[in-house]
């Protein structure tokens, strides 16, 4: 170490100061310690996030909460419940005339993936999972329509019930399409919005068709 004796530091570089970095917010520390909290807290936090997104879908304002923290719990719950309610709606129980669970599931997810790919190819700025999240959550009005249809079908299955179901399904279909375009169309270049809206329209149309033509056994 003999050669280091004449190394000197110039006077104007400060060599003293605070070594600890001030922590702005304590949230990173809190995130690391979520293992210690009770399970109820974790579940309630996730449920609250899902619930908040449901509210955003029912009253579509142009907020970015749905896009920012995307999650796929809500779409999964909606898809599974819709597929369960649509199962076995065939006139004859021997043949499989109605959509099966796997069919509905595959249609919803495959359709959402195709729409997402399409919007990305058209130059969208939204990420893959954000788009899946929005499309999945906007199935909520149609799930509500399915519930209403089932209740109406319990009362009877004549022409009046068909008209009621038609009106309800069409209203919910319009709501779904408007809600999803409110979130998705903003991420597109302005002159190509129609190109993105059309496949969304087709997708929710097919789901509405499946709901409308559902006849219980």
């Amino acid at each position, binding site marked *: 170490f003999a050669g280091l004796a004449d190394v000197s530091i110039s006077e104007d570089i400060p060599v003293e100061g605070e070594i600890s970095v001030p922590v702005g917010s304590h949230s990173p520390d809190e995130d690391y310690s979520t293992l210690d909290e009770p399970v109820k807290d974790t579940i309630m936090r996730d449920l609250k996030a899902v619930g908040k997104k449901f509210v955003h879908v029912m009253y579509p304002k142009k907020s970015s909460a749905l896009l920012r923290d995307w999650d796929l719990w809500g779409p999964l719950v909606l898809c599974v419940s819709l597929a369960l309610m649509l199962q076995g709606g065939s006139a004859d129980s021997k043949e499989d005339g109605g959509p099966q669970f796997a069919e509905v599931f595959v249609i919803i997810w495959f359709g959402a993936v195709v729409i997402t790919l*399409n919007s990305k190819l058209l130059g969208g700025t939204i990420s893959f999972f954000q788009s899946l999240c929005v499309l999945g959550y906007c199935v909520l009005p149609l799930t509500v329509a399915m519930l209403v249809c089932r209740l109406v079908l319990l009362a009877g299955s004549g022409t009046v019930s068909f008209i009621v179901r038609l009106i309800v399904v069409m209203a919910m279909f319009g709501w779904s399409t408007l809600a999803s375009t409110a979130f998705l169309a903003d991420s597109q270049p302005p002159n190509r919005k129609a*190109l993105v809206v059309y496949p969304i329209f087709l997708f929710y149309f097919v789901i509405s068709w499946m709901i409308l033509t559902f006849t219980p056994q």
Partner: protein
Amino acid sequence: TGPSGTVRSGAAEWGGFEDNMQGGGSAVIDMENMDDTSGSSFEDMGEMHQRMKEEEEDDGEAGGADEEDGEFLGVKGLRGQLGRQVADQVWQVGKRQASKAFSLYANIDILRPYFDVEPVQVRARLLESMIPVKMINFPQKIAGELYGPLMLVFTLVAILLHGMKTSDTIIREGTLMGTAIGTCFGYWLGVSSFIYFLAYLCNAQITMVQMLSLLGYGLFGHCITLFVTYNIHFHSLFYIFWLVLGGLSTLRMVAVLVSRTVGHTQRLILCGTLAALHMLFLLYLHFAYHKVVEGILDTLEGPNMPPFQRVARDIPAVPNAVLNTTAKAVALTL
């Protein structure tokens, strides 16, 4: 420092290296004591293995729990570590190769140029697909775009579903949705490939993407026809639509192909095939998935129907029983 500590002790326990290294500055390497097993014979390997096992047993008897553990990890640990390192390397290389392949093939940016359209262009092309071109002396331009055709195929699927449901088509092996998607995509991709193959045989100037685009836009006429005739059920109306709309879109496709082919025989083969397939497809879609008043057939044939059979919907105005008895009466009198 745990594993490295045991490695050191493991290396020390081998003994062979230590003896050689501590032999002073001798440049002569004694081959008998070499522990380098790469490319050595089976006997040497077996001998080394046996020596390692003996050392292990010796130290296992002698030492306590710690030493036994250390020794266990040491000798076996060295082999295990080598194995682990090799496995790790294989994994890294494999991952790198997979991600390279993925970024090369699954990159959707490959498809991006085919989706670069404006709504005005799509509308213009939709309308153009019904207007046959007159100039067949020099090659007509075909836009190699996939957005319009893809959307048209999906629309056809939706219309087909609507038609199947309103005619209560019951499909035995398969599902409604699967059949609709399979039919439409199968037609679009399959016939495009087939015509592209024929075009290759007939020396026509057309690429695969252009063929896909041409046939896709040709489905516009089919969409309109089926949309109207699935809701208004007059056979004569369907035939008029078939001739007019189907004919116009077929004529346009044929004209474009003729403009890109030389030679009469080739033009005839290519365009005849395309025209036949396109028109027949529309006919097939209408009759296979459409409400057909076949009450008589249904009651006479009974339960032993062949698979993929249409089952007619009951005519709402006339009760089923009346229809059945009438049919039976008619059959008896014949």
